[in-house]
């Protein structure tokens, strides 16, 4: 669907030029002209006061019978037989989509000896589980998992696939989407059903979190998306639930796997596991110097939480990239998020705004972080954090 300007109707007001998020409209000979940078998002359609911009439907040659594709699948990512939380978060959201579509919800479980996870996958909402087991899946590899997921798609034809936007999910998703020849929307933070078409409406941040885009995949199946961990809540497990387990034989041969995992190095301790943490204490440039980061760690320890960092801190080399929260770092959704000396650039907010409670400490009362904070303290982190640690210790000792 291309967006076109009807030059004879254009009144040269320029409203579309400033409304275009992609800078794809220029004024040429006093008429709006749409350049190659256009993504057909349609933002200009709404602002044109005279309706001179239209969406043209293009013919597509797609040999895909959409009616054959049914059901919502959730890819249950696991490592070493442990499912990541994001799979359960997606089952809870996938349940809503499946119900709205009147179709079944299936979990896809690929791994070595992972059958013990089926109970939990049913309890979290799946009607059915596709289970593929084999020693080829002991560790994640692009090749083994792509072959298997593609094979499942070709055989069982799902309408929708949800995957976690983890490093492995973002490695596997595009490879599978490309092999199947379908669309994939990355890093979604919201899902719904587009009322007009009944398609899944995938919403994701773009331009560093400055804008949100809702994306559809109208003519290709399955409709695929990766979803950021921690944006949806897991629903409470219901262990009375069960369903059909479809065991599928592993078709991967050892020679198909072209990468060899030599070593797995775990870094740091639990404190790095930001995705699963309930309390996160993050520090930013306002901590002034790397040594003062010890205060962040002490506050995190006192609260039993994990340590995070802003991009500025990671760029300055105070903390490794694994600690980075934000658009290009990790997305977190703890119960409590402490932002200490973090100004709250939009890129940072994109990684933590689904936290239940945000507490901001910053000496600049104008810092944007205060706009999204539930509790804010204007003050020097070097004074406030030690005082906080004292107070919390007092309460804990008394409690």
């Amino acid at each position: 669907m291309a967006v076109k300007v009807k030059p004879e109707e254009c009144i040269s007001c320029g409203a579309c030029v400033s409304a275009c998020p992609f800078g794809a409209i220029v004024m040429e000979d006093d008429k709006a002209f749409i350049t190659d940078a256009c993504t057909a998002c349609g933002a200009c359609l709404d602002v044109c006061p005279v309706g001179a911009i239209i969406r043209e439907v293009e013919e597509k040659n797609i040999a895909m019978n959409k009616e054959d594709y049914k059901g919502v699948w959730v890819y249950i990512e696991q490592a070493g037989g442990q499912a990541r939380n994001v799979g359960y978060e997606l089952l809870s959201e996938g349940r809503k989509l499946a119900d709205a579509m009147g179709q079944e919800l299936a979990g896809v479980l690929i791994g070595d000896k992972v059958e013990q996870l089926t109970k939990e996958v049913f309890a979290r909402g799946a009607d059915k589980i596709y289970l593929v087991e084999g020693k080829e899946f002991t560790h994640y590899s692009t090749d083994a998992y792509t072959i298997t997921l593609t094979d499942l798609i070709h055989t069982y034809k799902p309408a929708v696939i949800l995957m976690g936007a983890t490093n492995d999910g973002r490695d596997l998703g595009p490879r599978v989407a490309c092999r199947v020849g379908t669309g994939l929307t990355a890093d979604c933070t919201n899902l719904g059903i587009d009322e007009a078409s009944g398609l899944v409406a995938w919403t994701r941040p773009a331009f560093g979190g400055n804008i949100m885009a809702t994306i559809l995949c109208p003519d290709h199946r399955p409709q695929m998306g990766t979803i950021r961990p921690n944006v949806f809540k897991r629903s409470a497990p219901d262990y009375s639930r069960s369903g059909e387990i479809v065991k599928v034989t592993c078709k991967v041969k050892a020679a198909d796997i072209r990468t060899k995992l030599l070593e797995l190095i775990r870094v740091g301790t639990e404190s790095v596991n930001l995705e699963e943490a309930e309390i996160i204490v993050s520090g930013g440039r306002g901590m002034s110097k790397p040594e003062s980061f010890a205060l962040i760690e002490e506050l995190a320890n006192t609260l039993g939480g994990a340590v995070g960092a802003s991009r500025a801190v990671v760029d300055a080399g105070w903390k490794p990239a694994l600690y980075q929260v934000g658009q290009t770092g990790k997305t977190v959704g703890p119960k409590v998020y402490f932002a200490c000396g973090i100004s709250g650039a939009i890129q940072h907010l994109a990684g933590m705004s689904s936290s239940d409670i945000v507490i901001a400490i910053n000496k600049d009362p104008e810092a944007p972080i205060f706009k999204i904070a539930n509790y804010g303290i204007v003050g020097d982190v070097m004074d406030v954090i030690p005082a906080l640690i004292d107070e919390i210790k007092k309460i804990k000792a008394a409690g």
Partner: protein
Amino acid sequence: MEIVVCVKQVPDTTEVKIDPVTNTLIRQGVPSIVNPFDKNALEAALQLREKYGGKVTVLSMGPLQSKEALKECLAMGADEAILMSDRAFGGSDTLATSHALASGLRKMGRVDIILCGKQAIDGDTAQVGPEIAEHLGITQVTYVSKINTIDNQVINVEREHEEGYEVIEAQLPVLLTVVKSINEPRYPTVKGTMKANRKEIPIWTVNDVEVNHDALGLKGSPTQVRRIFTPERRVQGEMIQADTAKEAAALLVKRLVEVKII
């Protein structure tokens, strides 16, 4: 060693602001830059060339002004630059973009290593790299934070993941996407900039590559943007007012106890 780095010219999204009145992006005055992660990819390529010899080519797809980004890459030390630019490529989503870039890579003949940034900062999809690898049918390793060795056509790299790192070996040819921590990209030298200004950047149109025209542009893009909007911001909470840090801390802790966080 034939190395190709895929780069994208992007608006500097850290400079993008939202107009509070119209709620639209203010693009005016926002500089176009080489996607920062792609600079890490180029730096990695240049370091490989220094160690193992060979040639580094940068490849981009985009409007003609993307030449500026390629010039910067040449100034940093790339040997060649090629721009794929054609109206037919416009409006491509990740699948169509990777189809086009893969056709350009095929035209180049032998390529041992393709390097990409982990994602572009305007779209943040992280999909074009893996999709190029799939179109070409080659091995991929994403989120590479270190390239250890290349020995006998086998590359040994470290891949970042949630809990730490994986050490992975793969036979060339391979496509790697790299993270920021892999290196510190060098700055262009004066000599490099002068050389870059003299260097011809070939433009490949849709007629210069073997592509399926139906798989390009909006027509070849399975995903379609339906709506663009500005994210909601949360309502302002409570600012804790106190004369000293100690009092403020005590008040905050009291609130946290009330809502059962402590």
